[in-house]
């Protein structure tokens, strides 16, 4: 299920959709990670991420921020995610490969996930997430 990149003058805005909240979170993770490191295939690198937050918006911001941290600090290109959400707790298995400039270079570095414009809502049976990321 593809994510959309919407117009935002200075930053980058994503809209993602999922049949469940967890699926929408997985799609948001893919949007953020593909923007930074395109052409990734899940080959061998797996990281488990656990996040707990006061509300669902913070859970999303913290989860994506954790991926920014891992991508940067450990030089990983991520592209496949299995997310489980229980209340305000999230566990995710994140798969990817070691970042290589020849393969994954040319993306845009995301500096942070902003609360401005971050929204989570239902549309029919779907969950929609909108995220503004600073690039």
């Amino acid at each position: 299920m593809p994510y959309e990149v919407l117009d935002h003058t200075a930053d980058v805005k994503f809209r993602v959709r999922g049949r469940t909240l967890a699926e929408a979170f997985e799609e948001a993770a893919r949007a953020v990670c593909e923007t930074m490191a395109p052409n990734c295939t899940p080959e061998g690198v797996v990281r488990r991420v656990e996040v707990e937050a006061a509300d669902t918006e913070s859970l999303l911001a913290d989860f994506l921020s954790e991926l920014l941290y891992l991508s940067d600090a450990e030089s990983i290109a991520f592209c496949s995610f299995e997310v489980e959400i229980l209340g305000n707790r999230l566990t995710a298995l994140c798969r990817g490969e070691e970042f290589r400039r020849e393969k994954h270079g040319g993306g845009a570095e995301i500096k942070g996930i902003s609360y401005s414009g971050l929204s989570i809502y239902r549309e029919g049976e779907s969950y929609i997430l909108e995220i503004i990321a600073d690039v």
Partner: protein
Amino acid sequence: MGDGVKRITDYEWEVPVGFTPGMRVPGRFFLSEALRKSLESGAIQQLANVATMPGIVKYALAMPDIHWGYGFPIGGVAAFDISTGVISPGGVGFDINCGVRLLATPLSVQDLKNRRELVERLYQAVPTGVGAKADLRLSGRELEEMMLAGARWAVDHGYGVPGDIARCEEQGAMKGADTASVSQKARQRGFPQSGTLGSGNHFLEIQEVKEIYDQKAASLFGVSRGQVAVMIHCGSRGLGHQVCTDHLRNLEAATKKYGIQLPDRQLACAPITSPEGKAYFGGMAAAANYAWANRQMITDMTRKVLVKLYGIKYEQMPLVYDVAHNVAKMEVHRVDGKEVQVCVHRKGATRAFGPGSPDLPSEFAETGQPVIIPGSMGTPSFLLCGTAIAMEKTFGSTCHGAGRVTSRTQAKKDVRGRDIRDQLAREGIIVRAPSEASIAEEAPQVYKPSEEVVRVVDALGISRLVAKLVPLGVIKG
């Protein structure tokens, strides 16, 4: 433009109290008629949101490069009383001390016969783009020292000359840096990235001084017509991004703890005097110092390439100046005839202290500080100086750049990176970037015209034009 926004003078507009509920002061922004067309209503709303924050003094301000950001609008400036006011990462941004510096050289355009080779060598020398790492491997102690001493750390370790320090805002290191407020995660990101350019709008540009508007100031700053100069634009890299992310989370809790009502969660804040507010300030200052060291190290790489290629001396390339664009600082300003201590947030705005300011080195006592305004890729950049009017009107602040008008998504639909590169090459500007997309996203037409933005700040008097620089070669992150 938004209901109720009033025009005050040719270039000055007011967002009245009541535009959004809870405003404590009016908003003021500066625009020409030409720039007004590209102003988004979201940016005005963000300016009004800033005006609701506790302890804000006089006005929530925005410079002529105002546009829609997150938290504060980009181009936003606000001063908060240090005893009753708040401090917020939403007024600084993720890229703490993103800033720009200008390096003079003894070369003239005629000396740059092998310009393509120069661009290529600089591109090879300066780690650029997502995932780039520096050759330098810092120890834990070195990183700690760098966060305290900023540009001085780099100069002391051989990445510059002592004269560079005086030519940096804050002498290249903010006081009050507290490394205990920088998490292990932030440090881990900081180790491999000191001395890297980053991506997005960060760049290293070879320029020619094309025009001088103020001969006296230009001589003092060390620039002359026909001279080759180098402009470097980057910030605090992953370390600064992580400091912002970490403290944003802490300040979210603090906002609730102190009962502060905000219209946007990204404006999360705490009283300047609170433990949470002090921790953010200390961490932010440490990241700002890391950014000054970073720009200093890139300066060293640049000088070494020029020494090798043109046989000039390292010492023949003095720093003109280095300014921060994203930072919060403790300053003293006169407000309604009284001196007040304030925490000035500048988010996509430049300090522009005027003549006689006690915070400036004595060499700038008559001119005010140098102000560097980068253009977009392929458009002119400008050197200006700070003014007394800026001290009165804008807490000593001016614009920081051209300001985007087109989203990155739209830019990639409208133009192809290859076409832009070819078009600029025909104009004599050589561009080197990690991808075609990164050229398209930063194409000249996606920004407001830099000439118009600086014309407005000069006409308003919040800074004064000194020189115009045009690009010859660009390295994009």
